[in-house]
Every structure is written in structure tokens, then in C-alpha cells.
């Protein structure tokens, strides 16, 4: 009897029955069998460790917030995608480890031969034949065994003979697998549901927030569109602090996007960045103006008179206690000096005075250059904080170069004048004039603070809208008068309306002056009443004050262990008023940083709130 695949099943049959195929070397078949067994082993191991792979996927997905956190501008849905990607990656790694381990443990060639024997129901026929073939045994019985083994494997389809055994899972394994599946779902939930998503579910974006965010976005785009265009790279380098302005616009865009997305934390952070940028821009403009004034004074020879009134210079108030002068700008003063030099005769005394003025002007220009470089004239480090980032440094470098060129030209003019070479002095002074004119023009073009005022105002509105939403105010609408129109800010925030004036005096906490009557207060829905509260002087703060409550008492209560929530609720309005006040020059420039630091220190937020109570 002859079995399938050329396998003879009875030794009593004649030797020539049905065996007309060429035998193939055992080793080749057994290597194929080993490879096949290796894959089957990998499959079996993967199936056996499915729970482990699932657990790895769960860990990967669940660890998404730590391993691959969302950047602020990123959409929240990406959290789920990233969790899935991380889960797949972790599962892949676990799978690879299990597979490699199983592959490395695949049976040896001899064991593979024995597996083939088992699969064919044979007892050591293939394995013994393979062993004898491998050992090159030449005795008769060994050769006989090898031939028998070759006959068995002749035409043997390893893929069909070696089939995976059916997977039978115990109850314990099934329980583990179900648990791992649950863990995967949990991991995906942990990794895929982002903070922003939760916040959006708990506190959906209100209509007021959306409107404020849209307005902020529009203002930012307008500010970016109205930014001065500089044609040449050289002029571009002279732009005063464009990075700060760009930062401000960019932060406004980020805040708008985050607010529309419902990511209030990111929006608030972006707003804070925006405020910082605005402050940096403002400070830079002041520094630049101060340097130009100083240069002008030196060129006019008024420094001696102005020295005693340096405080006036630093206060930013022009003209106070300063002697009257003919020139309004440094370039004009330099032009006048050039004319004086050209018209000067042989009067050595007047020439000496002109040389001295040029020398002092050069020192002032050098000081401005050093200051632009981040250090003041005395070589101390500038602690103003401006120009700390890369873009700021770039702008500072351009301005420093301009000031340095001006200083060099002034030095050359001074030397030429000292030599009596009026022509050379005149040429040098022309060069210096060009540099200074460029700096003045750049300073005029900047006017960034005013250009950005609209953006900052809209940011304040967004800030208020978000805080109102966090308080649980779900009402929509807002500044355009289509929403709740809660306090007349509809008109007020339009700036062109007839809303309640910021400077309008009112009683301390008197609610009578609170609601504005601007034209935007059209469709007002009933909502929490926001009232204007006099903080002090001519500044007012707006806060949601209910019947019988006073904003002032909320602040006073902080010092006596009052409810911190009231303070947290009222603070945004104060913050806005502070920013408005600082921008409108109601506070002396020298005092503005102090005022800002103070309000920053009492800004509500975690433990700091407790530490920095007023």
C-alpha cells in the first residue's frame, strides 16, 4: 500500500510501487519545515500574548499626555489620533518583542524533522534519516534509513503538512484578554480625550467668547495688514522692534484660535504673551524716543541745562523744564549744527564749542548703540527684559548698527571740525544726518502701541468673555449688541459709540452709572448685571456685581480672609482697567513697570493668589 505523497505505508509492498519521483535532499525540506514552524510559533505566541500586546497598546495610548502632549495650536481631535498612533506603536513594539522571542525559540533542524515525523504519523523516520545524512553515515542500515526518509519527504508540501493547531483559550486567558481589551479602551479614553475636549464639554464656548475671539482675530489681521512695509532689507533692519509687534499679532491670533477652540487656558496664556509683547513694544518705543531726544539735546548744546533735569527726561514728558530750542528732532538739530559749521568763520571759540557738541552727540549715539545692544552706556546689563528673544535681538542688532554708524559719522565730523576741515566735517555730518533721520522715521512709523491698541482692547474683551464663561455665564452675543448686551459694553467696546465713558466719575460702587447706553445695546438678553465700580481716582473697573454686592468689598475681603472667588471674579476687570490706564499715559512712564508688577503679582491663580493677596 502506498500512501499519499509517496509515503509507503506497508513494508510488505513491492519496492517499486508508485515511487517515480526524484528524491530531494532532506536538509532542504527540513529547513523549509523549520521556517514554517518558526512562523507558526510566532503566530501561536502572538495569539497567546494577545493580552500583553493589548496592555502595551493601552499603556501607550494612556501615556499620550506625557509622551506626546498637544501643542497649543493643535486641534483637540489630534489627541485621539496621537493616542491611537502611540497605542499602535506600543502594541507594535510588544508584538515585535513577542515575535522575535518566538522566532528565536523556533525548533532546531532536528526538532523540525521530528515535527514533520509527528505531522505524518511517523516514528523518527525523517529525523533519523536527517541525522544520518547530516553525519554522513555510510553503513548499510543508515543509508537505508536516509533513503526511507527521502522517500517520505519527496514531494512533501510543508505548508500543508504543518498547519497551526487550533487555538484553545482557557477561561483565565479569556478573562485576561477581555481585561486587556478594556484597558485599551480606557487607555484610548485617557490619551484621546484632551483637557480641551473636557473643558469644551463642561464649559462650551459661549457666543460672547466666539464673538470676542473673532473680533480679536480681525483686529490682529488688520494690525498685521497695516504694519509699515519696508522695501529694502536695510530699511527693514531699521524697523523698531517689529518682532515684538509681530509677536503681539501672533499671540493675538493664537488667543483667538484657542478661544474659538475652547482651549481657555491656552487662550489666556496667549493673551498674557500678547500683553508682554505690548509692554515690550511700548518700552522699546520709549527708549528709542529718549535716545533721540538725548542726541538732539547734545547737538543743540542743551545738555548742560538738561543734565540737572534728567528726571524730566526719564519721566517721558517732553518740554517740562527744558529750555526752548529751535529744533524739534535730532536730525534737524544736526542740520542746524552743520549750517552753523559752514557759516562759522575763523572764530576758534565757536568752533571749539561745536566740536564739543559733536563729541557729546557722539557719546550719546554710542550710548544709544550700546543700549540697543542690550547694555547701557556704563556696561551694565539691561534688565528691562526687552529684546531677549531671537527676533528682538535681530531688531536690536539693526538699530545698534544704525546708532553705531551715526556715532562713527559724528566722530569723523568732530575730528574734521577739530582739524578745521569743514568740507570733510560737513560730509560726515550729512552721513550722520541720514542715519539719524532713518532712525527717527522708523520711530515715527512704528507708532506700534497705538496701532496695537485695538488688538489689546479686543484682547481685554476676550479675557472678560472667557472669565464670564468660566463663571458659568452661558449667554451669547456681546460686543456687537446681538447677545446679552449685558452692560452697555456693547457700545463701549465699539469705541465709537456713546457707551459709558471710562473717565466718567461716579460714586464708589454706585450702580447707577454702570450700564452703558451705547448704540450696540440692541438685543439684550437678560443676564448677570455687570456694573461699573470706581476703583479710585478717575479709573473704573467693571465687574459682575449682583444685587447687594460691591466689588470693593470683594477686594477688601481678601485681606480679612474673605471669599477668594469674589476676588478672582472681579480681577479681570481691574486688570483691563490697569492696562487701559497704562496705555493712556495716566500713569507716569517711570511708574508703569511698578504698577504692572503689582497687578501681575496679585493676578489670581493657584497658590500665588493666596501668597500675593493685596
Amino acid at each position: 500500500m502506498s500512501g499519499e505523497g509517496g509515503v509507503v505505508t506497508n513494508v510488505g509492498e513491492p519496492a517499486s510501487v508508485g515511487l517515480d519521483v526524484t528524491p530531494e535532499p532532506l536538509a532542504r525540506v527540513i529547513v523549509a519545515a523549520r521556517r514554517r514552524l518558526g512562523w507558526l510559533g510566532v503566530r501561536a505566541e502572538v495569539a497567546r500574548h494577545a493580552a500583553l500586546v493589548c496592555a502595551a497598546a493601552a499603556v501607550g495610548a494612556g501615556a499620550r499626555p506625557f509622551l506626546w502632549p498637544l501643542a497649543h495650536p493643535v486641534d483637540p481631535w489630534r489627541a485621539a489620533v496621537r493616542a491611537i498612533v502611540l497605542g499602535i506603536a506600543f502594541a507594535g513594539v510588544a508584538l515585535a518583542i513577542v515575535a522575535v522571542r518566538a522566532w528565536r525559540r523556533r525548533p532546531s533542524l532536528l526538532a523540525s524533522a521530528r515535527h514533520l515525523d509527528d505531522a505524518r504519523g511517523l516514528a523518527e523516520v525523517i529525523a533519523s534519516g536527517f541525522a544520518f545524512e547530516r553525519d554522513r553515515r555510510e553503513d548499510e542500515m543508515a543509508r537505508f534509513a536516509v533513503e526511507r526518509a527521502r522517500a517520505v519527504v519527496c514531494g512533501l508540501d510543508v505548508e500543508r503538512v504543518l498547519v497551526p493547531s487550533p487555538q484553545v483559550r482557557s477561561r483565565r486567558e479569556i478573562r485576561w484578554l477581555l481585561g486587556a481589551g478594556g484597558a485599551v479602551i480606557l487607555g484610548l479614553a485617557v490619551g484621546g480625550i484632551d483637557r480641551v475636549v473636557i473643558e469644551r464639554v463642561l464649559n462650551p464656548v459661549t457666543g460672547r467668547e466666539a464673538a470676542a475671539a473673532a473680533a480679536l482675530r480681525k483686529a490682529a489681521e488688520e494690525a498685521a495688514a497695516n504694519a509699515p512695509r519696508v522695501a529694502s532689507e536695510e530699511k527693514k533692519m531699521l524697523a523698531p522692534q517689529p518682532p515684538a509687534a509681530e509677536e503681539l499679532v501672533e499671540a493675538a491670533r493664537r488667543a483667538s484660535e484657542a478661544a474659538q477652540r475652547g482651549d481657555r487656558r491656552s487662550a489666556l496664556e496667549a493673551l498674557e504673551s500678547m500683553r508682554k509683547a505690548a509692554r515690550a513694544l511700548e518700552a522699546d518705543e520709549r527708549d528709542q524716543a529718549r535716545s533721540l531726544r538725548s542726541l538732539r539735546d547734545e547737538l543743540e548744546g542743551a545738555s548742560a541745562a538738561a543734565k540737572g533735569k534728567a528726571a524730566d527726561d526719564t519721566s517721558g514728558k517732553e518740554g517740562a523744564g527744558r529750555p526752548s530750542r529751535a529744533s524739534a528732532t535730532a536730525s534737524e538739530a544736526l542740520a542746524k549744527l552743520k549750517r552753523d559749521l559752514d557759516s562759522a568763520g575763523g572764530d576758534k571759540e565757536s568752533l571749539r564749542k561745536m566740536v564739543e557738541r559733536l563729541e557729546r552727540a557722539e557719546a550719546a549715539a554710542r550710548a544709544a548703540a550700546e543700549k540697543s545692544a542690550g547694555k547701557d552706556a556704563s556696561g551694565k546689563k539691561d534688565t528691562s527684559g526687552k529684546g531677549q528673544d531671537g527676533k528682538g535681538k535681530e531688531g536690536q542688532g539693526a538699530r545698534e548698527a544704525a546708532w553705531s554708524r551715526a556715532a562713527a559719522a559724528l566722530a569723523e565730523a568732530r575730528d574734521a571740525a577739530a582739524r578745521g576741515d569743514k568740507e570733510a566735517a560737513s560730509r560726515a555730518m550729512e552721513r550722520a544726518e541720514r542715519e539719524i533721520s532713518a532712525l527717527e522715521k522708523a520711530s515715527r512709523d512704528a507708532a506700534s502701541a497705538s496701532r496695537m491698541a485695538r488688538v489689546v482692547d479686543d484682547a481685554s474683551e476676550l479675557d472678560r468673555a472667557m472669565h464670564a464663561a468660566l463663571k458659568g455665564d452661558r449667554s451669547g452675543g456681546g460686543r456687537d449688541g446681538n447677545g446679552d448686551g449685558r452692560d452697555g459694553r456693547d457700545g463701549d467696546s465699539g469705541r465709537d459709540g456713546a457707551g459709558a465713558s471710562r473717565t466718567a466719575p461716579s460714586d464708589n460702587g454706585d450702580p447707577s452709572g454702570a450700564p452703558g447706553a451705547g448704540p450696540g445695546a440692541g438685543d439684550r438678553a437678560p443676564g448677570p448685571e455687570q456694573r461699573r465700580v470706581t476703583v479710585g481716582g478717575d479709573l473704573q473697573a467693571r465687574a459682575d456685581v449682583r444685587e447687594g454686592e460691591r466689588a470693593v468689598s470683594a477686594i477688601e475681603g481678601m485681606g480679612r480672609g474673605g471669599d477668594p472667588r469674589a476676588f478672582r471674579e472681579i480681577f479681570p476687570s481691574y486688570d483691563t482697567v490697569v492696562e487701559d490706564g497704562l496705555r493712556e499715559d495716566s500713569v507716569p512712564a517711570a511708574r508703569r513697570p511698578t504698577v504692572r508688577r503689582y497687578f501681575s503679582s496679585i493676578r489670581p491663580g493657584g497658590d500665588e493668589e493666596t501668597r500675593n493677596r493685596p
Partner: protein
Amino acid sequence: MTIQHQHMNGQALPPVTNGRAHDGHANGSPRAHEAVEARMHEARRIVFELEQALRAMILGQDAIVAGVVQALVAGGHVLLEGAPGLGKTQIVRTLARLVGGSFARIQFTPDLMPSDVLGTSLVVTTPNGGKDLTYRQGPIFANLVLADEINRATPKTQSALLEAMAERTVSVEGKPIPLPDPFFVLATENPIEMEGVYPLPEAQLDRFLVKLIVRMPDLETLTLIGARAEDPPPPSPLSSPEELVFARSVARSIVAAPHVEQYAAKLVLATHGHRAARYGAGPRAMQALMACGRARALAAGRGVVAIEDIAAAAPNVLRHRIGLRFEAEAEGMTSDTVVAQILATTAVG
């Protein structure tokens, strides 16, 4: 040698679950392989017929019958242990008739002397009236020797069998006299009676290729035995001693792959490392394992020894070669338990 397809009682040889060399040999001569197959077939026929005839006579002891036949083919001696009346003696008597050689039965008793086994020299009168010493052969000079209740004899008499079983010679007056070929000793012992018996020493036990435990037949077999009105007639010889020698030579030619030999060696070594073993099996056990494996492979019609042959032979080969510690015996362990544990823990390759 003629290949027959039909054998005694019309029973055919069972199919062999292994391959066979085909015509297109890459190495060696096809004719040589055909001759090998023919020899194997003939040897297997002898073994198969012997086994079938014994099974027909001895009901319910198939494993014992197979073990005895395999030991016979392997050329070793058998120690049968079992309670009285289980058919031990019947197995040997039937086997003696089937093989067709000379048969001797020695009933071992405490007063049995070595000369009663080996033979003795007698003073005889020569034809010319003189006196001479003539050696008269004892019952050991037979192809099949039944040493019934061997543990009843004194150690002195038991040890008289040592040389005969190991060397297959008997020394008489300093001269070795060869025993007939084939020479096959089948000893029986009764494990129940503990008084008046002399347990076989380890050296004597080691001479036995296998020790078979004859157990009580089951209900069905007992019913069949009871249904027999009388004992079946003695069978006629199926083979000759020469055929038995031929089968032995074929069995000895069967080869084992290195990993199979290594497995057998591992089993033997494992008997020494087992915590329950006071002493383990020696190299003779290794030879016995391989011999039994070859005989079993021949019975299965295979040209190579398989792992399963070694594993199947291991209990019979090792059980009387393992001495148990007192603690293990107190725990109820037997040498069979030890062998089973060794088989379960020893890996192939």
C-alpha cells in the same frame, strides 16, 4: 527469502507507519536496500507470529507477551514478577513450544544446589572397567530455561546463574562450556511471600534485560478465561531456534540516530540524579535500552530506533536497576514512579 503477505491465522502484518526506500536511490544499491527490506520483513514476521501465538494462549497479558518477545529478540533474559496464578509459567512454557528449541524448567527451592542447575561431574565406570569423571549437564543447558520462583533459592544457587546469564557459558573443572544458542532465561518471582525467600542481589538483577510486572487481568479477560472449558491445546512450533537467531541479528542491525542514543543515555544518567534513587542504572542499562528499542523497532517494522521505542522500553529496563531510598519508599514511591518522572522531565535532543 520469500516475502509472505498472509501469515498464521490469516492475519496480515500490521501496516508500518514509516517510509521505505524507493527505486531512485541517490546512494547505495537498490538491490542492497531491497535485501535489507526483505530481511527486515522476514524478521518482523517471525516476531509477529510469535507474539500473536502467545497472545492467543495468554489472555489479558499483551504487554507482558510483547515484553517477553522483545527481550527474546533482543537477546536478553526476563524476570517476571507477579502473584501466583497469573500465567507466568504458562507464558514461558508456551513460548518454549513455539520457538521449538529445548526447554528446561528449574523449580527453585531453598535446598536447590548450584550443581542441580549447572550440572555435576559423576564418577562413571569406563568400558574397560576403569573409573572416570564425566560431566552431566544440568537443566541450564537448554534454549529456554524457566527459573521458577528464583527468589526461593539461596544466594549461592542464584549466583550460579550469573556466569550462565552474562557469559552464556558454564565453567566446569576450569573449562568454559558454551550454552546453546539461543539461550534465554525466564525467571519468575513472587513478591507476596516474604518468608523463606532470598531477594535477588543487584548484580543478579542487572543480568536481566527487563523486569516485567505481571498484573491481575481485568474483568473482561477474567470472564474470557472462565469461559474456556479447558486449556487450549499446546501450540505447534512456529519457528526454529535458527530463525530466532536470524531475527536477533536483524534486530541488532537496526540503527539509532545520535539524538536517540543521547536520549537513552540521558534517561540512564537521570536515574542517578533523582532524589528518590539510592543508586541508579549502569552502562548495561544503556545497552539494554538500545537493545529493547531495536527489538521494538523491528516489531514495528522500522529500520531505525525511535524515541518512543526507548521511552516504551525504559520502565521494563530501568525498574529493577534503581534502588530507592528509605524516605522515598516511606513516601510510597516505587521505581516505576521514578522512571515515569524521569521520562516526563527528560527532553529530546
